[in-house]
């Protein structure tokens, strides 16, 4: 018999130039690089693609990415995790507290352990007691803060070089480079040639002074993809986030998988905190996380609950944050990048016949160009907005096809309970 599927074909976007997805992404990336390079050459803001920027971007992106990854694990199993921030705080404290006494790796493990504890509290509340996920998350944020401050008072107050609000420094972790690469690329980068120097800069930034924990973080993203999308374990975990009753009817132990997921989520958030206290700086400090848990959550939504997208979200955030911290001139040049981006999107929207989006995009494009042309540098405070404004801009102009796991945020009650 005929199926309805053939009669009502899927809504598919016209694929650009008939390319498959990976190639399309590569094409977009390359086009982006060309534009960036062009703007760098025009404005002379060499920091746009310098090794230093890329390196700093990675450092700033990792904790956000890890927190986001934590959010992803949890939400894929249907549990919203607003408590990432609290779990990160716990992690940073765990790392700082143990790190200075027993070494950085011990600190990392403690960060994960503390995060897992936070995750388990969340799991008990949301899975066992069926508490609203947001409420539990908010409570965990308060608890994470309170517990660390309390513990710091008890455990760090009399430590050498530490105090109630900070731990003594730890030894940190090695930051290896690919030998010889930097020397090879640096001359090329410093020529500031179109495209070639940019590629050299980016490669040099990516492969020199990379903390071991950064490598771990990237492996975790890959591992997450493999685990969640290529194994039975992952299928079960995701099914729990999509339709727990269907999963249950096939014998999947729904609550158990939720527990796994939320515990891993906590561990990853804890690791994100640990990264701050071991790699980004080498001590715990009160207030160190600075809302990165929330940003991680945003990066996860930005990335459409997928590891790859999440990495892009965190990367975008890290890149723009690095830019504003490092170089005011480059931030100013970013206005031109924004202009180019908006213009590109406008063209795309015209191609797709989305007239209103195209119009709005064009207006903002022109505005950013005018802004660029009429200023030499952005006022200091304004530059600190860069990552946030960019995120909003990209989100509001990109096509919206975000889809969260269907049962995310729903309190699951087993059949017959």
């Amino acid at each position, binding site marked *: 018999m005929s199926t309805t599927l053939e009669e009502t074909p899927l809504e598919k976007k016209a694929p650009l130039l008939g390319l498959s997805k990976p190639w399309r992404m590569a094409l977009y990336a390359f086009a982006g690089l060309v534009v960036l390079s062009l703007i760098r050459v025009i404005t002379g803001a060499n920091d746009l693609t310098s090794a230093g920027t890329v390196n700093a971007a990675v450092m700033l992106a990792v904790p956000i990415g890890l927190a986001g990854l934590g959010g992803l694990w949890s939400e894929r199993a249907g549990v919203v995790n607003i408590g990432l921030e609290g779990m990160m705080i716990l992690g940073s404290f765990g790392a700082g507290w143990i790190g200075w006494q027993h070494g950085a790796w011990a600190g990392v493990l403690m960060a994960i352990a503390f995060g897992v504890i936070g995750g388990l509290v969340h799991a008990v*509340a949301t899975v066992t*007691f*069926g*508490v*609203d996920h*947001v*409420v*539990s998350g*908010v*409570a*965990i*944020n*308060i*608890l*994470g*803060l*309170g*517990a660390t*401050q*309390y513990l710091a*008072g*008890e455990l760090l107050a009399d430590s050498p070089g530490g105090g109630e609000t900070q731990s003594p420094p730890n030894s940190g972790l090695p930051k290896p480079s690919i030998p010889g690469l930097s020397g090879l690329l640096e001359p090329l980068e410093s020529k500031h040639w179109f495209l070639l120097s940019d590629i050299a800069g980016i490669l040099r930034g990516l492969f020199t002074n990379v903390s071991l924990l950064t490598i771990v973080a990237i492996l975790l993203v890959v591992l997450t993809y493999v685990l969640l999308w290529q194994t039975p374990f992952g299928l079960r975990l995701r099914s729990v986030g999509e339709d727990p009753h269907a999963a249950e009817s096939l014998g999947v132990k729904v609550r158990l998988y939720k527990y796994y997921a939320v515990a891993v989520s906590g561990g990853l958030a804890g690791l994100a905190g640990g990264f701050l206290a071991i790699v980004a700086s080498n001590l715990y400090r009160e207030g160190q996380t600075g*809302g990165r848990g*929330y*940003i991680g*959550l*945003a990066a996860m*939504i*930005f990335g459409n609950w997928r590891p790859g997208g999440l990495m892009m979200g965190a990367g975008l955030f890290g890149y723009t944050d690095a830019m504003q911290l490092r170089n005011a001139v480059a931030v100013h040049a970013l206005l031109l990048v924004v202009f180019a981006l908006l213009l590109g999107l406008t063209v795309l929207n015209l191609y797709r016949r989305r007239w209103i989006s195209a119009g709005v995009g064009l207006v903002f494009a022109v505005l950013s160009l005018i802004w660029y042309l009429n200023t030499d540098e952005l*006022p200091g*405070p*304004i530059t*600190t*907005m860069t*990552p*946030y*404004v960019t*995120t*909003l801009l990209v*989100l*509001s102009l990109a096509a*919206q096809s*975000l889809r969260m796991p269907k049962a995310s945020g729903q309190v699951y009650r087993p059949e017959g309970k």
Partner: protein
Amino acid sequence: MNKLNADTARRIGLSVAAPVLAVALSVVITSIVLASAGNDPVETFTQMIEYAQEPRTTTLIINAAVTYYFAALAVAFGFRMNLFNIGVDGQYRLAALLAAAVGGAVELPKVLHVGLILLVAVIVGGLWAAVAGLLKVYRGISEVITTIMLNSITTALIAYLLTADKLAVQVEGSNNIGTPEIPASGRVGGIDLVPDSKLQVYGLIVLAAIVGFLYWFVIERSRFGFDLRATGRNEEAAVASGVNVKRMVLISMAISGGIAGLVGMPQLLGASYTYSLDFPAGIGFTGIAIALLGRNTAIGVAIGALLFGFLDTSSQILDLEGVPKEIVLITQGVIVLSVVIAYELVRRYRIVAQQREVGRQLSSAAGSEDSKPQGAQA
């Protein structure tokens, strides 16, 4: 009817059970934490309670609660239709800054002056929140992301505006910087609400009460509130019933932001008269916890605000007595959790009870064939 009385008694019993259970649970957990670090829990609680009873402290608690109340209502308003306004923090700070700037720049008759400041605050808060609403409605971006981003953008914006060549004045000899002081006509005097206290309760407590009442009235009694709650509970059904969800999102976000705009007002008009670097921050986040604690109802939120006010204020005495005052944060977190756990347990019990009732009615109906049991409680 006897059964009715029994029912009412049980209902009241149940609604009291949850909070009592919750408070008990959080006291126990806090005590364990305290005791494990060698602090005497009984003594600690006694100190806090005794301290809270001093007229001066009572006043402080009420004042803290007034501020929290606005914040929590702002968050709760969004929650009632499933909007998570994490941006109350940014909204109130921006609103307070601009309201302070306007208030400090003009001289008007008292009522007009105060009214103007409040109006500016509400409008600024509302518009700033509406940005998130617009992005949600027209670009489909989750308000969770936008409001998080807007909070940070607000901080940068305020830093930009709060300089001597923009909205602020630099007082000689001060390392602070703030907007020009609001003249007397724009201030709201305190009220001697607590006997024997030299301190006064914020005059804007009256406004808080009014807003609380309006909140209840609009949500529970008005058509708009019905639509709002319907949307929050089943958006698709609301759409089918004729609710324009996009409009509702925009309006609710704006109203939530408008209430958020009032958060800074007790402080601004009743105490500091200027928006300066040390203007209180982070109240928006406390508001989230209190809204959830108070289950998004006007009364519940008021109680939650008082509870948080009590904990925050009396933490000071702990410091003086050498007990780590961070314990209060732990108590707050535990309370939020245990309240919802307690409510959840009671809710489960209630549903089971209700289904049992329906089941009983149905089987008795089936037993007597076609007799209809409807309207049993008419």
